[in-house]
């Protein structure tokens, strides 16, 4: 495998795994939200907000994937680079933090947000606290994204 291909595996993992995490998380919240809305259709807006929270991991993953694609030259004006396999592995490693943490934190953030739907069912005025709980989980996805971005910026593609 050429280095470029290995780098693109990294992009695929970042988008794919973090996306799976978000899909599961958003799915969990959607299920409990739909249950609540059968009883009280006016809660749609509030529950949609909660459902959006675990969706960010997928975006972070896409972002990491996009950065890799841009550096490698799959998209954008620059010509596609031919990478050494060591450079390719560097890209693959850089994608790992957001891929793994995105997968797991998306699921757990979904569980917290799903529980927050129950909170909103009984006390709609406490929506904010439910959001804060969910965001405590997201912190680690943000940190993983940061690690991925710093790693990506640190890779020297010309050398």
């Amino acid at each position, binding site marked *: 495998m050429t280095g470029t291909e290995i780098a693109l595996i990294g992009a695929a993992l970042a988008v794919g795994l973090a996306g799976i995490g978000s899909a599961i998380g958003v799915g969990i919240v959607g299920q409990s939200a739909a249950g609540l809305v059968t009883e009280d259709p*006016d809660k749609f807006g509030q529950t949609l907000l909660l459902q959006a929270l675990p969706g960010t991991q997928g975006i972070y993953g896409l972002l990491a994937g996009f950065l890799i694609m841009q550096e490698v030259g799959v998209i954008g004006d620059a010509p596609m680079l031919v990478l050494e396999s060591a450079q390719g592995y560097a890209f693959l490693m850089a994608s790992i933090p957001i891929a793994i943490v995105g997968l797991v934190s998306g699921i757990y953030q979904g569980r917290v947000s799903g529980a927050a739907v129950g909170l909103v069912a009984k006390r709609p005025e406490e929506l904010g606290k439910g959001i804060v709980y969910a965001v405590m989980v997201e912190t680690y996805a943000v940190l993983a994204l940061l690690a991925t971005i*710093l790693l990506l910026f640190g890779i020297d593609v010309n050398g």
Partner: protein
Amino acid sequence: MPIIEMKKVFLLGHRQERDKIFNLLHNLGSVEMVDVKSGEAWDEFQALLEPDQPPENISQIDTTRSDIRYCLDFFQRYFPVKKTFIQQFTGGKLELSEDQFTEYIESLHRADEIYGSCRQVEDKLARIRNEITQANNLIAELEPWESLDLPLELVKDGSYAVMGLYTVPRDNALELQESLAENVSNYYLKEVTFDNEFMYFFYAGLSEERAAQADVFKENAVTEVNFSQLSGSPAENIASLHKQLDDLEEERASILREIESLLEHRPMLMACYDYIDNEYKKHDAVSNLARTENSFLLEGWVPAPVLKDLENTVDEKTETAVLTSRDPGEKENVPVLLHNRGPAEAYEVVTKLFSTPQRREVDPTPFMAPFFFIFFGICLGDAGYGILLGLLAVYFTRQLRIGESGKQLLKLLLLGGISSIIFGILFGGYFGDLIKLPPLWFDPLDQPMQMLYYCFAIGLVHIYFGMGVQAYRNIKAGKPLSALFDQGFWFIFLNGLILLLLPGFETAAQWIAIGGGAGLVLTQGRSQSGLVLKFLSGLLSLYNITGYLSDVLSYSRLLALGLATGVIAVAINSMGEMVGGGVVGTVILSIILLGGHSFNIIISALSSYVHTSRLQYVEFFGKFFEGGGKPFKPFGKSASYVDVIKPEEG
């Protein structure tokens, strides 16, 4: 002082004026009533006073209230008032002018009659629902027999012969036929139909052989099906039941039209509900009072700035009432009302989301406000998004009628928009790279490490500021040594460690860190008993350095979120560029740009808001703020359904 001072008031008046005074207080909405019986002085009062009871007609009012509520819920069930997406957050109440509201209230007496009609209609609907279920059940029972061409009234026992309709589990069907052939000499059995579970059959036999037949049937779990109340063939019955169902559906539709004709009363009922609900609360509040034969005593909290107004109003409008006030006592549970001036006011909503401060605590809102402003801007960090966000906030403030905290939230978003315009210009973000302008300061995408250091630096300032506020609280509480030990030594120790990282300061930094650390080791165990324990828990306290480290690292999210907004915006733009030119290309391009950037604004603004809040709650408030105060809830008007618009408001 952002926390408003409260005064305890006592109002003594003649019973005859009680309702008048209640109306007065209700309209002012500036007094939070307290149950006189819960006060410290009640033990002394008890000899002179007795608890007041709500007036007798309160149960009447409660009934009317729940009747109206029933009607409104009933309407909502069949003809829901749909709320738009935005109204779901803002409440979306019915807007009425004052005249209209009064007019509606005057027809309150009609509520009874409407309630009667609603009840009647609901009973009819319940009956129809019942009949529909019954008809459907009967159809389901009859369906297997549809091919039996025999009037059901003929299926009955005669003097010599017995006959009936039966079902038998499929597995037993064969055995049943064999067993019958063995034990019963004369009989006639006709299979009508099979389904997955049962065989359905008609059976006729002789009366004298009934006992033998019954035994065989019992052995094979045969069940008799009884249609004795029906006449005509099963197929005829099914047809007539279907017709009955059609009739019932029609009747249901006509009843729904009946409900629709009642719907015109809905606005009136909504107004009446709000009116009667307030009446109920007024009557119910009487149970907070104490009374003698001819007078009553009311106890409550009033914000000090409006006390004068209250005194004047009571003086002017009543003849007998006397109002006295005093400062709150040491142990009293005083409600807390926040009041911040200027831009800081917008951030009250962030504080309240966490917790209302305690009475003697400082309100963290003004301290947090500038940091919230800056952090939000760094996270969103795009001038174009900032302009749009600000414009949206202004538009919604003008368009929507919303409560106090909704307005604060919009103001917070407007300020967030302004902040992100500033940081967008500094970092060169204008819808990502749609408009290519050089950054005024530097581009975090090019120099992420530099940006990361700035994030840590501003985080450190934030944390030190929180520690400073706590030190100030300690000093004010008469514990200057606590301020020195718990905040001062940490400040020295942390700064020493940071200086160690900088070249050229090594020796000085070393001694500063050692000095601070030694101070901590010597003082942090001071609440323990025994020298060894004191020293050990002092030493252990150094472990808290990990807490400070993770606090500072947490601010890296500012960089990450800022980059995320920017990179997603760039991604949207480059997706747009991939589309070819021409008319179709331009249309697709605008759809991608419009949809993509709208999506990014919403998601990024939400992340910016929640992550900025988290930095305040966990990293900042954790240093000095406890919360847990009781918010001030004055006795006053409340509305569930309607918004009465005063003429001067437009």
